[in-house]
């Protein structure tokens, strides 16, 4: 495998963790987050600084990065998750901008616009791929648990959800912390893969890219998020021959899907082995029945 393909796989995996980090929040609970990359930035910078300035071992940096992201989610979530959904979306956009501004201003610690370099390269290909699979599995289990169900209930009808004993605020808080920690984890991997950080890597373009990927694949489909991330990150590479026209082709592609398939490529469908077996069984059943009658 050459370096180009390897780097493509690794960046795709990290982006995928990012997209999956907003899936429980935006896709399932219906809270739009246009600033989720802020948590990626926090995870990346906290772990990066811990490694560069304090020389801490990788595993400790990882724990620190993920935990600080979680703590920040608590601080941000407490006042904002009681707001209506649209105000929360606005707040998340501001959060993303605020974090990049802070990273730019406090150059003494973060390296400012010049960036933070010399982070040791610790994230290997195997580690990144395995963590992506682990994150997908965890979010998949989240979806099939009572927490996933409560999220979907809150998304459809908050008042009805409350009438069935669900503490909406507490639930939103849990989901927000959970998703922010995943984004923080993506940030840690990113820092130790890239070995160099720069505030502009975590601007709103990245956050909105994640939302686009999520909606392209299907709002309520984890499988959709995975497929759309693979497809949309490799598409610009495949279209490289078309030079600047590739951006147009890429955009048209997304617009077509969002316009003609408003619920995304897969909608609510999920990949599951029992369902596939059932589908084939029914299929053969029908065929044999038709054959019998004929």
């Amino acid at each position: 495998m050459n370096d180009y393909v390897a780097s493509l796989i690794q960046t795709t995996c990290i982006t995928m963790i990012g997209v999956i980090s907003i899936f429980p929040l935006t896709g399932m609970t219906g809270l739009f987050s246009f600033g989720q990359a802020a948590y990626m930035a926090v995870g990346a910078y906290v772990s990066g600084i811990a490694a560069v300035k304090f020389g801490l071992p990788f595993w400790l940096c990882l724990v620190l990065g993920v935990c600080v992201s979680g703590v920040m989610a608590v601080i941000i979530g407490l006042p904002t998750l009681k707001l209506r959904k649209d105000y929360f979306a606005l707040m998340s956009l501001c959060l993303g901008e605020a974090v990049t501004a802070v990273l730019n201003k406090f150059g003494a610690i973060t390296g400012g616009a010049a960036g933070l370099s010399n982070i040791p390269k610790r994230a290997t290909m195997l580690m990144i791929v395995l963590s992506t699979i682990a994150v997908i599995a965890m979010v998949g289990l989240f979806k099939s648990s009572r927490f996933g169900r409560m999220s979907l209930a809150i998304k459809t009808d908050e008042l009805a959800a409350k009438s069935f004993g669900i503490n909406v605020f507490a639930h939103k808080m849990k989901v927000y912390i959970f998703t922010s920690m995943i984004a923080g984890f993506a940030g840690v991997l990113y820092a130790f893969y890239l070995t160099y950080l720069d505030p502009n890597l975590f601007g709103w373009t990245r956050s909105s890219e994640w939302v686009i990927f999520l909606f392209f694949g299907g709002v309520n489909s984890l499988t959709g998020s995975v497929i759309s991330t693979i497809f949309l990150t490799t598409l610009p590479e495949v279209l490289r021959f078309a030079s600047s026209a590739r951006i147009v082709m890429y955009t048209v592609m997304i617009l077509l899907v969002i316009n003609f398939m408003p619920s995304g490529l897969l909608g609510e469908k999920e990949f599951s082995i029992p369902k596939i077996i059932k589908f084939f069984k029914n299929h053969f059943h029908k065929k044999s029945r038709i054959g019998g009658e004929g």
Partner: protein
Amino acid sequence: MALLKVENIAKTFGGVCAVNGFSMEIDRGEVVGIIGPNGAGKTTIFNLISKVYKTDCGKLWLDGTDISAYSQEQAARSGIGRTFQNIRLFTGLSVLDNVKVSCDYKPRYTLLEAILSLPRTIKGKKKTECEAVECLKAVGLERFADERPGNLPYGMQRRLEIARALALKPKVLMLDEPAAGLNPEECVELVSFLKEVIKRFDLALIIIEHRMDVVMNLCDRIYVQDFGKNIGVGTPLEIQNNPKVLAAYLGEGDD
């Protein structure tokens, strides 16, 4: 003391007095009906008891505990189950999952246990599944477990709402116009179904209903509301012969 005791609750919206001092008592196994013309404040009473709205004054007692200051989810957890006048099912969930939602507030497993699928999660999921299937069977919808609620006919959606409320294991079940949109035969069916539910789940039932055949056949006691005020309480027979009620409500309607 009665299972649910409502003491002089009131609610105003701006200058409109939606409920003006409503009192009620109900015991296990009893059925109470609330009737009255449109805009009489019947649904507001439900919303006050289930704590969707905060009461301006008055007290609520459930099984001896004061629930006046409870939040909506606390009221639900303490045993007040309800349905809505305009059906509010979770359209994004399957029929079975709609019922399961009622069991989901119970901390059978934590988020950490869920994402790692630890033993308590697997056990908890099984328990929830059992309870939900049982409630679906009680209303006869187990065949449609994997269907989306939007695909069910109207009457079945109403039944699903009842199943979802039953899964909360309520002490008091409140149904807001359960017979709306049903034909006469379905109404007869509904009455016998509800009688069975009361026996089987050992609960108190409060219904709001416009269909007099349902109310008169089902209720032990009827409260008549008009413009936020109570204008009569009594057995179906007493209500039918109450001149005040006849003047305000039954006498005026064309149906």
